[in-house]
């Protein structure tokens, strides 16, 4: 599924994207459908906010697949090399290094409470904690690929 990036004009498509993800995973439990829909929505939001169109395409690309053991959600967009990619890689390393993603999530929420100006940087933590997806990123200039996987128990 292609989606626009780098503009807010199609922000309202997020609800449609969540519905399509749920439809794709309709054979799975509702909790899994909703977790996957949230995960895809957060990743697509990030791509819309910060990304650029893929080479030879009008936008980014979302792929959702499932086999007997794993659900995989992939979002690809173009991005310039630089601090944002480095920050993203550090954030994901931090999630993987944490004993429990809920501790990072709660700590981030508490920062919101303590600093009224704090916001953002919650989406990846939410995917790991609330969605229970393993989140990874790969960057091969100019393409940024975000992959979220969840083992079906």
């Amino acid at each position, binding site marked *: 599924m292609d989606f626009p990036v780098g503009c*807010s004009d199609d*922000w*309202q498509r997020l609800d449609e994207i969540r519905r399509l993800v749920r439809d794709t995973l309709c054979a799975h439990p509702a909790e899994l459908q909703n*977790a996957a829909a949230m995960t895809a929505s957060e990743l697509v939001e990030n791509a819309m906010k910060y990304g650029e169109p893929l080479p030879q395409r009008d936008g980014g690309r979302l792929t959702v697949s499932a086999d007997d053991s794993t659900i995989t959600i992939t979002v690809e967009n173009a991005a310039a090399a630089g601090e944002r990619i480095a920050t993203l890689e550090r954030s994901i390393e931090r999630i993987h290094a944490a004993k429990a993603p809920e501790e990072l*999530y709660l700590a981030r929420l508490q920062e*919101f*409470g303590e600093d009224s100006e704090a*916001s953002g940087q919650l*989406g990846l933590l939410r995917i790991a904690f*609330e969605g229970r997806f393993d989140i990874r990123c790969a960057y091969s200039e100019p393409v940024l690929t975000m992959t979220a996987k969840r083992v079906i128990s």
Partner: protein
Amino acid sequence: MSGVELFSEQALSIEVCDTGAGVRVTWRGKSDIREPDNKLIPFLDQLAERLKNRKVTIDFRRFEYMNSATVSPIIRFVRRLDRNAASTVLVYDPLIDWQRVNFLCMKTIARTLAHVEVLTS
């Protein structure tokens, strides 16, 4: 304040109903808000100021979805109510997965606040 007031942005609506004895703030719909600083945070900041020392119930049970950008404004609103000594009860639906997960975190935060309680429906 008195009567009913409505905030809406995209598919999100927030109804503020003053019954005299207390104020019920009901969140409905879905929030995919991209820039909460533009409308949502100013609305909630002003509302928190007007609700000083009031009895407030914030009902999230009909709130179907929120993106991560919506979380910070909610926490900021709750903390401002607490600071303004508004006796605040947050009500959520534990059968909705995202609400159960996020409001359990909110319960932890509420333990650090003097005037805020988190309850299930």
